[in-house]
């Protein structure tokens, strides 16, 4: 079946560095999402994206965060600069309208 691909699966960086998490959504999906999950706890909504624009972002989506999908390529989440509390698993998801998002396998981000 269709899959959302996330690259890399694990990223280790030093605090203060920039990191870009990449997501390849399902090809015909229109809505894209990023979620943050710490230690298997709650799935926390960060942001959703449609037609080249952010639709809504949560309080967790700090000023250091940004998203884009240039020319239909990867949907990316950039964090610059990173902080220790950014360590988590970040899940990308995509969907058609009126459907439940399909999730990727996640990127585990470790900020040292």
């Amino acid at each position: 079946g269709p899959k959302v691909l996330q690259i890399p699966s694990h990223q280790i960086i030093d605090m203060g560095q920039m990191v870009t998490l990449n997501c390849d959504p399902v090809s015909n999906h229109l809505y894209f999402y990023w979620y943050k999950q710490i230690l298997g706890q709650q799935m926390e909504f960060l942001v959703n994206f449609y037609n080249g624009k952010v639709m809504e972002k949560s309080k967790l989506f700090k000023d250091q965060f940004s998203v884009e999908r240039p020319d239909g390529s990867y949907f990316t989440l950039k964090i610059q600069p990173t902080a220790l509390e950014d360590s988590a698993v970040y899940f990308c998801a995509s969907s058609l309208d009126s459907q439940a998002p399909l999730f990727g396998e996640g990127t585990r981000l470790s900020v040292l």
Partner: protein
Amino acid sequence: QQQVRQSPQSLTVWEGETAILNCSYEDSTFDYFPWYHQFPGESPALLIAIRPVSNKKEDGRFTIFFNKREKKFSLHIADSQPGDSATYFCAAKDSNTNKVVFGTGTRLQVLP
């Protein structure tokens, strides 16, 4: 801030019993209610979903009961199996922004 409340936080049942997981919400802009399960180290996977036009949705051993007036919905897992042991998340999608908000999760353990 939009939220979905979920209970119990953890639930243990014997094999063959019915597990009941509960969720509630307040926002009337929510129009789609999926349930996901998540195994350790994996991403959330869609189980079953319902729209408020229905008060019940069945798929095999999984049934959603939906009470629009009280803004409550529940997942019943009939004939629970040890392989059902996982964390279950209810969620709700906002009709205006397509934002999908997750509940806090229920950790289900099915004992043989």
